[in-house]
């Protein structure tokens, strides 16, 4: 036996490399006899990503192997390796268009350099305006259970029907500040880096220190509301995580026609790629990253939004009755009553594992509670909420109204993004 060390080489510019237990997933296939047929036919591991991290080490028999790494951006990179003694392998992936887009490329929000360079649109006559919405009106920004959060649905539906130039004033309690300046950009993309305290390169008014944060992206035709995933503290360090918001003008990757695409990702070394896999719908793969994080999930008081991300991965993947993490989902919903996503996941689990009508009743009740908590942080939460309410919509008038209200907002959601991004209004 010997050791095989693996890592994915990628410049994640501007942030720390990803540790071995939260980087990307790799599958090591034995190619040569006599390895095949021994206990080692195939093993799945998580490997670090970056330029300076060490390697994930695996005990393997001497032989030939194929390493396959499905990435959060949907690409699958492979590398064949002969292992005759301790061997370290650097798995390479396509270059990102710019160094500062390394993270965005990894999580799938931009294409690789080759494809990016073939798209050479002219510089647009105008660039989108990005406004910080740090003090939203209560239905949008309120933290609280059974509070004005339930009014967010009619608020957003009303805003969508209104004059686009009035959107900011209808959503904010504070006057607008100067538009945000991107941290970096080219003719196709603008990149903004923010924490819960605002952009890294600009001072802004914060409003309630514990309130929700949003961005408004205003193009010459459209207004897009972006729910920022704050508060999010890096799981290992406890520091405020940085969110990268990409405003992309090319329509190639799923943009609405003639509209900018807004993509939000989190530079959390522990959970960043997990959210990427979640967005891709690769739940079983994401669950591999969740294994080392389960202990941290138990400590969800530090980062309930990260716990919610883990909850989506668990509930959306294989789900057998009686698993320990089912209690965590219930605890998340009960302990953080400002978090719509917790109640949504609890409802989904009741629906999936219903043993009797009482379980379905509990799902119904949880969905009504989620409705009252306001706009989910995660786009998948919005989908699960509208789907769940549809199941019970014919049972009572109030649920039918809830379903209709959420459906009208959900139709505006970009579900290719992990966090809630809504196309609100059009000029």
């Amino acid at each position, binding site marked *: 036996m010997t050791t095989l060390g693996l890592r994915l080489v990628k410049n994640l510019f501007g942030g720390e490399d990803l540790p071995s237990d939260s980087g990307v997933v790799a599958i090591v296939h034995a190619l040569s006899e006599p390895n095949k047929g021994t206990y080692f036919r195939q093993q799945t591991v998580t490997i670090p990503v970056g330029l300076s991290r060490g390697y994930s080490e695996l005990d393997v028999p001497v032989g030939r192997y194929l390493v396959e790494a499905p990435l959060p951006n949907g690409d699958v990179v492979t590398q064949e390796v002969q292992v005759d003694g301790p061997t370290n392998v650097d798995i390479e992936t396509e270059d990102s268009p710019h160094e500062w887009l390394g993270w965005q490329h990894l999580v799938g929000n931009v294409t690789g350099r080759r494809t990016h360079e073939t798209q050479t649109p002219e510089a647009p006559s105008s660039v989108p305006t990005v406004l910080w919405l740090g003090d939203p009106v209560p239905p949008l920004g309120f933290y609280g259970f059974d509070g004005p959060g339930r009014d967010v649905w009619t608020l957003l539906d009303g805003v969508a029907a209104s004059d686009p130039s009035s959107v900011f004033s209808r959503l904010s309690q504070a006057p607008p500040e100067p538009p945000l300046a991107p941290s970096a950009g080219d003719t196709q993309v603008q990149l903004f880096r923010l924490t819960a305290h605002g952009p890294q390169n600009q001072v802004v008014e914060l409003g309630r220190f514990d309130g929700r944060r949003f961005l408004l992206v205003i193009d010459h035709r459209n207004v897009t509301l972006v729910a920022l995933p704050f508060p999010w503290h890096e799981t290992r360090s406890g520091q405020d995580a940085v969110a990268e918001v990409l405003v992309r003008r090319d329509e190639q990757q799923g943009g609405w026609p003639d509209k900018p695409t807004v993509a939000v990702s989190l530079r959390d070394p522990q959970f960043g790629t997990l959210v990427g896999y979640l967005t891709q719908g690769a739940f079983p793969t994401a669950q591999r990253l969740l294994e080392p994080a389960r202990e941290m999930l138990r400590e969800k008081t530090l980062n309930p939004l990260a716990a919610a991300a883990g909850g989506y991965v668990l509930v959306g993947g294989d789900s057998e009755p009686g698993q320990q993490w089912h209690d965590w989902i219930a605890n998340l919903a009960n302990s953080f009553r400002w978090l719509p996503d917790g109640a949504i996941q609890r409802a989904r689990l009741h629906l999936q*594992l219903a043993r009797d009508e009482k379980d379905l009743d509990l799902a119904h009740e949880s969905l009504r509670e989620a409705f009252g908590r306001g706009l989910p942080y995660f786009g998948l939460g919005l989908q699960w909420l509208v789907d769940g309410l549809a199941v019970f919509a014919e049972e009572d008038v109030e649920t039918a109204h809830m379903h209709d209200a959420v459906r009208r907002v959900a139709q505006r959601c970009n579900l290719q993004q992990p966090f809630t991004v809504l196309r609100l209004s059009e000029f």
Partner: protein
Amino acid sequence: MDQFLVHHSKTEGLPATHALVIGVGAYPHLNGGAGTLTGDHEGMEQLTSPPISARRVAEWLIRWLTYPAKPLASVSLLLSEEPPQPFTNPATGADYPVALATGANVSDAIEAWKARGDEDADGRNRLLFYFCGHGISEGTAMALLLRDFGENDNNSLHGALDFGQLHLGMDRSKGRQQVFFVDACRATSDTLIQGLGHAGRVPIRPGRPPVGLGGRETPIYYSTLAGQEAYGRTGAPSPFTEALLVGLDGAGSDDAEGDWRVDTTQLKKAIDFFTNKALEAGAQLVQVPANGALSTFELHHLSCQPRVPVYVSCKPEEAQALALLRCITQGQPPTERLPAGEVWELRLTAGQYQFRAEFSDGSYRLTTVDAWVRPVYRRVPIEVGL
């Protein structure tokens, strides 16, 4: 046998797989159609690929789908094509007239398909759904356009299927494994659903799922490739359907159990890979509803080694256009490709190969690379020296 079935075999009360396949290319009320043009045409045109794609999928299922625990028991097929053609069952050679994919027919077919899923009271039946044709997606809502889309001036989506509601409604089925393939070409603006307030017919309304049968396992595979061009290929299935069939044929398989089996997760990897390749080639993507769940279960057992896409190229790129490329394996005559600028694409059976780059003008050294080929795909860059 109901009018939609083109394949039916008895399974003696055992769990089984039932498929519903729909392909809509002829739209009388869209541009180029034989009927009155609807005011909601939004520039949509006739499509050639969907009926071909649907036939290929139906043929593949009948001829090749192998899952011993839930063998294929039925395939229902509805098409809209000009002119209509019968379907020849590849297993029996029998010809079947194919029902038109209108709203009414599709609704009836869905009810019959769900009823087959309900035949096993223990929830063990598996249901497969495939659609190819025009589609509109707005956030969580998706309308699959059927042959009679636009026939009703007051409600064009009366000729459409609300896919989101269908997927939700099918949670009422006792068949707890349901796989959906949605190959919908989106070529409209995003306001039709919003404007009409709904996304089409709802044959099975959402409601409480059956209790005590376990959760539903229900992956949805959406095509995310945009543009009518991809669905107008003459005599060929759409790119998504091609990727799906290549995946089922082996690119989406794994041998963790000793033999090669396609499962839901591997199939997704294969389809995502081919989508990314199309993106590199200049395709555009569209937004689709989120795939809100994906559990891993087996779909198909291969009876032979999988055939896997292989991409052979030279490094540096300049050498590519000068290289005679050969692919050699034991027991097979070698294959070769004359010098050309683009990457050499092959489909090879999983196994070990030798790839060679030869330069008759001596511009680079002859170089040989040994490589194992296995799913999902294999890139073989041959680094040549001077």
